[in-house]
């Protein structure tokens, strides 16, 4: 095993920012329940409310528009579940229009949630994307109707990095008086996000993709928009999400957001340079490849590439042994051989999708990391192709 670690899987999760680590270690001693009225409770509550203000300000929301959750997935599940609620309770202010629309490239937590809605009788449509992963706006225009309750389109895709024109989409949705949700887990803290400018109704995001701790996410719910809790049983989060608050997680989340405020723009420049170097290195050294995702409207650190005639997981294995962490577009571990739904949705043949590697760069990566990766990648692709029956150009 190589002693070297080159972490190129930042879309999966990120290491803690040193400042976040510091903030967490300073908060370790704080154990009060934020719901308690005594001093210990108050101290915790105060930290959470400051965190809420900071996080809200980062996306130009009001503090009362932020609900903390246990993860990005929980946040997404919560938003979609509103549209299957049949409660007559006065606490529940659900929207009367229930049809839900989403896209073929959403994160599984949105796709599986919408499947669950469909099983419960909700009408769910799935919108097409083009070969770069951009939503087909004509398709949206045709399908959306006066029964549509929610349209959910992710801001940036986790696998190919494609960024949608959220502002345009939100406008089209609002023109039909429907609500709009965007899963911005991969976007908040990586690209500028302003909920007023985008004019979205729900926006979901999480802490661990931006150097914060795992186990904490958030939902932005525009003031006045119908909402219904997913987890019941307490008055926390103003009755919108029960469960004792993850004080430490929220403090770390807020610190991570604070660091993004000062570091995001310079980091974006650096990531774009590193990605260009990575892309050029791969293009120069490895034939018969295809880059996936939109060439420009793409997350700065995300690069997805298919290597004809190879198997992604064999490449991953080799790189892992060399200390390089990437991920692949195949999902063999689940026992199924279906490749990534995202890569299939942008029209890749199953075999090509199976040969894909996603690299997602982050703040600690260097040019040396990139050069090392290109060298090892060229080696393994050549080797795997030499024994491949699927590679014709040996």
């Amino acid at each position, binding site marked *: 095993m190589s002693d070297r670690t080159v972490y190129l899987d930042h879309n999966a999760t990120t290491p803690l920012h040193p400042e976040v680590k510091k903030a967490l270690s300073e908060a370790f001693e704080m154990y009060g329940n934020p719901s308690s009225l005594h001093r210990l409770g108050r101290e915790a509550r105060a930290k959470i409310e400051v965190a809420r203000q900071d996080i809200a300000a980062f996306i130009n929301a009001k503090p009362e528009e932020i609900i903390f959750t246990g993860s990005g997935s929980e946040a997404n599940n919560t938003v979609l579940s509103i549209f299957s609620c049949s409660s007559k309770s006065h606490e529940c202010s659900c929207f009367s229009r229930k049809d839900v629309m989403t896209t073929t490239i959403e994160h599984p937590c949105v796709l599986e949630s919408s499947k669950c809605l469909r099983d419960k009788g909700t009408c769910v449509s799935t919108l097409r994307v083009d070969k770069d992963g951009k939503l087909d706006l004509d398709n949206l225009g045709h399908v959306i109707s006066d029964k549509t309750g929610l349209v959910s389109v992710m801001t940036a895709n986790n696998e190919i990095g494609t960024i949608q024109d959220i502002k345009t989409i939100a406008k089209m949705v609002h023109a039909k008086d429907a609500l709009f949700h965007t899963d911005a887990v991969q976007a908040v803290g990586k690209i500028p996000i302003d909920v007023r400018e985008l004019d979205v109704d729900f926006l979901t995001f999480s802490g661990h993709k931006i150097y914060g701790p795992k186990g904490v996410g958030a939902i932005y719910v525009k003031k006045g928009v119908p909402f219904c809790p997913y987890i019941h049983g307490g008055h926390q989060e103003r009755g919108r999400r029960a469960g004792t608050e993850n004080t430490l997680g929220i403090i770390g989340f807020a610190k991570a957001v604070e660091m993004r405020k000062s570091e995001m723009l310079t980091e974006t420049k650096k990531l774009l340079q590193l990605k260009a170097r990575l892309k050029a290195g791969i293009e120069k050294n490895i034939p018969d490849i295809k880059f996936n995702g939109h060439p420009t409207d793409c997350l700065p650190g995300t690069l997805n590439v298919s290597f004809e005639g190879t198997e992604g997981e064999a490449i991953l294995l080799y790189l892992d042994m060399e200390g390089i962490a990437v991920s692949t577009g195949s999902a063999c*571990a689940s026992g199924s051989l279906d490749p990534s739904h995202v890569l299939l949705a942008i029209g890749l043949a199953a075999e090509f999708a199976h040969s894909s590697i996603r690299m997602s760069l982050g703040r600690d990566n260097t040019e040396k990391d990139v050069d090392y990766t290109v060298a090892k990648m060229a080696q393994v692709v050549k080797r795997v192709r030499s024994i491949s029956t699927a590679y014709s150009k040996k």
Partner: protein
Amino acid sequence: MKKVLVAMSGGVDSSVAAYLLKEQGYEIAGVTMCLGVKREDAAACCGAEAINDARRVCDVIGIGHYVLDFSKEFDKDVVGYFIDEYAKGRTPNPCVNCNKYLKFGQLLAYAKSLGFDYLATGHYAKIISASGGNDFVLKKPKDRKKDQTYFLYCIKKEDLGKIIFPLADYTKEEVRAIAKKAKLSVAEKKESQDICFIPEGDYAAYLRDKIKLVPGDIVNLNGKVMGKHKGVVAYTIGQRQGLGISHKTPLYVIGIDVKNNRVVVGGKQDLLSSGLIADNVNLLVDRLPTAAAAKIRYSFKETMCDVFGENGIIKINFPHYQEAVTPGQSVVLYDGDIVLGGGVIREAIK
């Protein structure tokens, strides 16, 4: 440090194999071959549950675990072969082909190309070199009851030095004890018995879906019609049950005549053969001796025979008549503990 790629099915044997190698200080990675077999129970090797088991074991041992797609090879070289052979009226041995083309074919090629020094599996078999040099031989393992060398004769001789069988000197009981002590979750997992891609070992039902079964006559050696069969592919040489014929002496399937769509039955004496011819020969020694012990089915005992090897074919003469020499099954030759090689039985010599 030498690198070893370990083939992991999610069962206790390959799990302990990986554990032992790790203890011995090798740098290892675990691989499960995804065969694309769609089975509800998914417990057999290659299902989602098996992959999860293998991954859990790797996590405990502290090694990487990866899943590689072998579904195309499996479809062609194992399942396709299995069906083709049955359609020809033969009784194939898919596990031999799986070893030949998948584990010690494409997976070994992966191991070599990805920079590993060895491929290891959880088979009960042994590879040693008497001189410590390059003269490797395949031998029976310590646990004779579990001996799997019958399925491994098709490994290429030049690859023996690239393969490790860590369970060579352990019994199954010892393997389970090691798994328990190492807190591997699969320690108590039950043995897989059947052919992995056939649910509940029901060959006939499986074949019915794959090959059109054409009913026909069951005849005796004189051509007299004795009954009806459901389709020749559902029968194997030596089969006694399920013929649906009442007769004063027991009747056995002694021949399958695909051309005329007939199953031939006879008495026990008609099952006997004095020899056989095998092709698809693979040798694990430089030359075959003129006498060896032959195993003509996995569950059969070895029997001494005279061996005539020529032009990629082995001809065997049995001093004592043998029952149920079955085309499609493998014949494997031994000299004591050493596996000499083997081939696929093409025809029985009456």
